[in-house]
């Protein structure tokens, strides 16, 4: 009776001892040294695993920062304090790359760019609408407005406004590229926040034809080209294109005479937050260009 209790007890404790010894030997023998800083850096990173830095996740990025000396500022999601903490911890210089945000290159909501038909009974997403005759909007380049980007944004930076246009909250936007990839019309572009002069249109049509499709379309009238320093804006394929290499020279005057408000100057506000000029016939401007103001 005692044996029946004792033997299994002995066998089990013997086994336990044996495995314990094996494990402790294995721990000593096969020990892998891991830089403890990696753990710490990973903690300091936002753990969003968004992939904006080009790495599969925050852990991989932390390894790169510690082992290969990658600049922690490659993480666009971290706040500047967070980055400073990592830099202080590792004793490196953080040359903060300029904050970039996603900008929508279309301003034609349902009010400005009318629909030609109703979209009913299909898949409730921009992608789904685009497979049916390229979407219901009259303009072939314009924003569909069903908010695929708002769903794709993991940081809650995109909200759809009443005019069915996505508003990017520049505070929350981390330039993770998700909205750029998901937009079926390729309307998003990541831009440094210092780029305030933006052409919010992608229509390749010209003049009245462009405006007949959307009230805020770029009509390729060249007014902004004339009003800005030479070389900043040029008309390419019936669309004003800004040369951001000369970003320092850009000036809000360039947008003043735009008949459709396709080109905008974003000063301390998000896109589409200001009231858009609307219902203006072609060629008239709301604010008359004031020369006195310019030559002051």
């Amino acid at each position: 009776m005692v044996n029946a209790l004792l033997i299994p007890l002995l066998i089990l404790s013997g086994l336990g001892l044996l495995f314990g010894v094996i494990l402790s030997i294995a721990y000593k023998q096969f020990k892998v040294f891991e830089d403890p800083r990696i753990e710490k850096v990973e903690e300091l990173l936002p753990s969003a695993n968004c992939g904006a830095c080009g790495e599969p996740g925050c852990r991989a990025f932390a390894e790169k920062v510690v082992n290969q000396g990658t600049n922690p500022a490659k993480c666009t999601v971290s706040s500047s304090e967070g980055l400073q903490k990592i830099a202080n911890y590792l004793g490196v210089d953080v040359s903060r790359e300029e904050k970039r945000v996603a900008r929508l290159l279309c301003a034609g909501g349902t009010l400005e760019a009318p629909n030609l038909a109703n979209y009913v009974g299909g898949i409730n997403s921009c992608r789904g609408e685009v497979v049916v005759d390229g979407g219901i909007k009259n303009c072939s380049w314009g924003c569909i407005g069903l908010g695929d980007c708002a769903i794709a944004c993991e940081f809650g930076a995109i909200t759809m406004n009443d005019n069915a246009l996505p508003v990017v909250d520049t505070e929350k936007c981390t330039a993770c590229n998700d909205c750029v990839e998901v937009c079926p019309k390729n309307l998003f572009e990541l831009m440094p926040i210092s780029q305030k002069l933006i052409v919010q249109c992608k229509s390749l049509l010209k003049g009245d034809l462009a405006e007949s499709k959307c009230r805020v379309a770029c009509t390729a009238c060249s007014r902004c080209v004339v009003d800005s320093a030479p070389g900043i804006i040029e008309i390419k394929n019936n669309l004003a294109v800004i040369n951001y290499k000369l970003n320092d020279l850009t000036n809000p005057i360039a947008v003043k005479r735009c008949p459709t408000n396709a080109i905008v100057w974003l000063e301390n506000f998000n896109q589409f937050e200001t009231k858009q000029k609307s219902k203006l016939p072609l060629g008239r401007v709301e604010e008359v260009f004031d020369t006195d103001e310019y030559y002051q």
Partner: protein
Amino acid sequence: MAVSDIQNNKLLTFVNGIHPKDYKELSNNCKIQRMPFVEEYTLPLGQHIGAPSKSIVQKGQYVKRGELIADSVGFVSVSLHSPVDGIVSDIGIFDTPKGDVLPGIKIKTDRFSTQQFHQKAVDFESLDVNGFIKSIQNAGIVGLGGAAFPSHVKFAIPEGKNCKYLMLNGCECEPFLTADDRTMVEYPKQIIDGLLIVNHFLKAEKIYIAIESNKPKAIEVLSKYAEESNSNIEVVTLKVKYPQGAEKMMISAILGNEVPSGKLPIDLGVIVANVGTIKAISEYFRTGMPLIERIVTITGTSINNPTNVLVPIGTPMDEILEFCGGIKDNTARILLGGPMMGAVQKNLNVPVVKGTSGLLVLSSNEVKDFDQYNCIKCGKCLDACPLFLNPSRMGLLAKKGLWDEMLDFHVMDCFECGSCSYVCPSGIPLVQSFRVAKGILREKSIRDQNK
């Protein structure tokens, strides 16, 4: 000719598929009418699959009917010809029926021209195979079934493969459409002639003309002409079923062989051509006329005079609808193509292109909007899918946005026939979501390639 071995007194068909009501009676007795010349024609340069052609005309230039206005770029590309005598009025970007905007040429018709066609027949007997392929490319001939795939690419048999069977696709399984049916009834001579011209170069053992059994007139006429031609042409009757006219389904119905996933019919030694394409080839070699007009079915319950029209390519759609008596007040939707695969049109100021097979005007009685419910896993879509895919599972994956997982279920094999959506009792937009998935996956693979 002896009674066919493969026909064996029964209707041939494939496994699965659906049986929608065909509504062909609206226009299958209407003779093909010629659309009068209109004032202006718009010709997008990218009407076919492959590289868009390159314009070789200038604004203000006078072009003759059938004159080359845009040249092919590369092998998978075809030429484009002017449908009228007229003046090039604009070169720019114009709306296309696909809903996008493409570079194109606008031609203003010369009102005083007789619009007579002056070009010489092409002597095909002196050509070799490469010459034949080149001349089809120069004639701008593409598959007129709907996809507009350049025909010469199809006829250029890759090395190591040979063409055993040439098949003429006269199934026209889409409900409502009757253009191919009427072409077969009214142009049987040209069709047989075209087949023989093509076979002069392809040297297939056997030519099959596949027609669904709901076109008895076409079967009768073509059987008669096939017998008279004393050649290896045989007319086979297929069961009325959708999507019988899909290339792969037709081959499996006639030969009993399936085209493997990712392979082409030529891997089985088969080349399939559409009725309109063969007619265009015959016309090109006999009269020298390149592909500048095509037969389009204008039908539907909400158009005043449904009919089949011979339309110059580039004619605006609203002009054609007007020619057919205009649309009724209760029109709900206008589709380009048939009801199963056709795309809804939002804009009627777009031209007929080479791939336009029909214009379908539906009234509000036919157009229903379904409520969407959850998948009840009844398996009806599995019984309908002609490719034995699993639409039910793929639909669930699409709902969750798991596109990469859909690849494992061979979503890229789906040719978007729409049978799954047609049978789904829960009204789930299955084929639509596969279209979305295919678009996303294609974009993704392009992005990965560029990395």
